[in-house]
């Protein structure tokens, strides 16, 4: 039986190998002159980080559908592959997309996989734009990789500056996930900047994973050290627990989060009164009345039954950025992925390429791949974001 099974599996495997190399690049140009760009996304759709992967997949899907409905001469074909949040799987997902004849890589959602894939795309010459992998290591030394989100140290420094400029606190506590590159990156950026600005970091507390549930010790340490502000560059899931436990122990400092905090108001069943007064750095405001954002939020809710967070909005902007850059390229129809990569790099770094999106207006990119856009600090008042 086992042998039989083995033989069947081996045969299936061989078929899959050969199936992969079939279907050589079909002509990208249709009869009516429409050019098709294949965008391949990578992110976690299973495992602990799945929720962020789905947000980036869905946000981009909405942008793809809008663009395809425009009939502008550029059509986007879109595929999104699961990487389970692991570098090794991410590289496999990337190769799956290569077999699909992808033109541009959109992703990865999480940092460590993105670093691994970025060095592959750099060698293979594919243009890559990530919605949310925010470490400087993602773009370091790779001219083809660009970010839609702020880099971690940058975000930490911005937060420290904001605390100083608004005299929010002189003594701060920091709670971060030291098993996560994103969280650690922002926290260390914040601590370094706080030192320069003369803000005293009285407590530096960590937890090992986003599945951690008990934060009483960390909160007690901040409380006992007299922290007036607690900086938490972490995702909204564990943050909701921290807020709840702080409330229970009667500790009420100013809580300050990074962009990963966005989404806290839309956790199903979360008592949003706990988040009153919470400040966060976010490029995106789902409660905004601005027309484009409102449309996006409505479409997203209709299709996926949830309020989109900044992951989804960054994803949406990524697709538009790629699309608008493609519009500026001449002779798009005859380009292979490597030529398209160079052309897109030229557009993104040209200096006059500006994108208006949900997460910022007039966004530009530096040569090192970092985005330049306005950082916005909001405070949650009566369950909505109020810009500070």
């Amino acid at each position, binding site marked *: 039986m086992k042998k039989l099974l083995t033989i069947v599996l081996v045969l299936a495997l061989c078929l899959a190998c050969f199936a992969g190399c079939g279907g050589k690049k079909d002509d990208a140009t249709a009869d009516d002159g429409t050019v098709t760009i294949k965008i391949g996304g990578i992110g976690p759709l299973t495992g602990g980080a*799945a929720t962020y992967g789905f947000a980036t997949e869905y946000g981009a899907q909405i942008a793809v559908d809008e663009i395809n409905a425009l009939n502008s001469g550029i059509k986007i074909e879109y595929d999104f592959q699961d990487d389970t949040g692991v570098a090794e799987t991410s590289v496999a997902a990337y190769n799956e997309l290569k077999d699909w004849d992808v033109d541009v890589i959109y992703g990865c959602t999480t940092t460590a996989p993105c670093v691994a894939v970025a060095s592959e795309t750099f060698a293979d010459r594919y243009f890559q734009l990530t919605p949310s992998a925010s470490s400087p290591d993602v773009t370091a030394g790779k001219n083809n990789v660009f970010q839609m989100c702020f880099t971690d140290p940058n975000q930490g420094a911005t937060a420290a500056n904001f605390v100083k400029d608004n005299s929010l606190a002189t003594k701060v506590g920091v709670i971060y996930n030291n098993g996560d590159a994103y969280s650690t990156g922002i926290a260390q950026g914040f601590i370094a900047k706080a030192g320069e600005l003369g803000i005293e970091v009285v407590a530096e507390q960590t937890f*090992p994973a986003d599945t951690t549930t008990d934060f009483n010790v960390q909160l007690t340490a901040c409380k006992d050290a007299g922290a007036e502000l607690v900086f938490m560059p972490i995702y909204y899931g564990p943050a909701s627990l921290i807020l709840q436990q702080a409330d229970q122990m009667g500790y009420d400092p100013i809580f300050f989060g990074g962009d990963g905090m966005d989404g806290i108001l839309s956790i199903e069943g979360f008592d949003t009164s706990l988040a009153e007064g919470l400040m966060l750095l976010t490029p995106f405001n789902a409660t905004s009345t601005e027309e484009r954002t409102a449309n996006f939020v409505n479409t997203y809710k209709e299709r996926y039954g949830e309020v989109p967070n900044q992951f989804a909005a960054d994803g949406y902007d990524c697709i538009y950025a790629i699309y608008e850059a493609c519009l500026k390229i001449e002779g798009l129809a005859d380009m292979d992925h490597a030529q398209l990569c160079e052309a897109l790099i030229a557009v993104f770094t040209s200096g006059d390429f500006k994108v208006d999106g949900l997460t910022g207006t007039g966004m530009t990119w530096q040569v090192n791949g970092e985005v330049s856009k306005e950082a916005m600090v909001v405070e949650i008042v009566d369950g909505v974001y109020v810009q500070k």
Partner: protein
Amino acid sequence: MTFLGHLVTGLSLGAIYAIIALGYTMVYGIAKMLNFAHGDVIMVGAFVCFTVVSSLELPPVLGIILAVILCTVLGIIIERLAYKPLRQAPSLAVLITAIGVSYLLQNGAQLIWGASPKSFPSMFNFGGENGISLFDGQLNISYVAIITVSVCIIIMIALTLFTEKTRMGKAMRACSEDKAAAQLMGVNVNQTISVTFAIGSALAAVAGVLMCSAYPALSPTTGSLPGIKAFTAAVFGGIGSIPGALLGGILLGLIETFTKAYITTDLSDAIVFAVLIVVLLVKPSGLLGKYVPEKV
């Protein structure tokens, strides 16, 4: 005062580990299998309760009852389909099947409830308060913690009485000692093991509800880390021993909390596991585990 605060935190966390560990140890003691899917049954129990209370807006009591019933049924189905056919197979085969079931439950839950985290409703609010406040609010003990500790002790006593006094309990102990001999003495081994799984799964539902009440974050992967920690706790206390599971759970919670509070938060997991290794080296069958001499 801070010390007392940490003590309360450690006890509450330990009680959660203990209640999960009770389910682990129960199944291990009788069926001699490491049920790695136990943590995921906990997650399913919590999700069922969440759906009933938050989405359907029915009373919490109904949520708990439904969670217990559904988890018991789920436990019986899993046992029938995945574990029962493997009674004669090597124990590692069952372990791998349990891991398969664990993946299945996690991914199934993600398809049903989605991947985004949910906030579990607070069900233990009495008079608008969710806990007792002592020393002018310097020390807070939540009702969930009190309830968890009490439920833990009740379950431990009930399980001990059940295995000591009832017919079924005796059959269970017989199976745990020697399956073949039990069978010869007229014990229906298959049925006994099925009942054990049903009880273990019902306990998992209770543990799920209590865990998510104490730490109200719920996602398809919620069960896996507490599952591993509770497994550790069960081994710590001596796997198979019911009072050992309680002791192991509480101690694990306390060690973890005090490590974080007084040594470092950076390496808390490493230190907790290092303590575990040391304890096992000194007492190789756990704190309350029975030493079984080897026979040739």
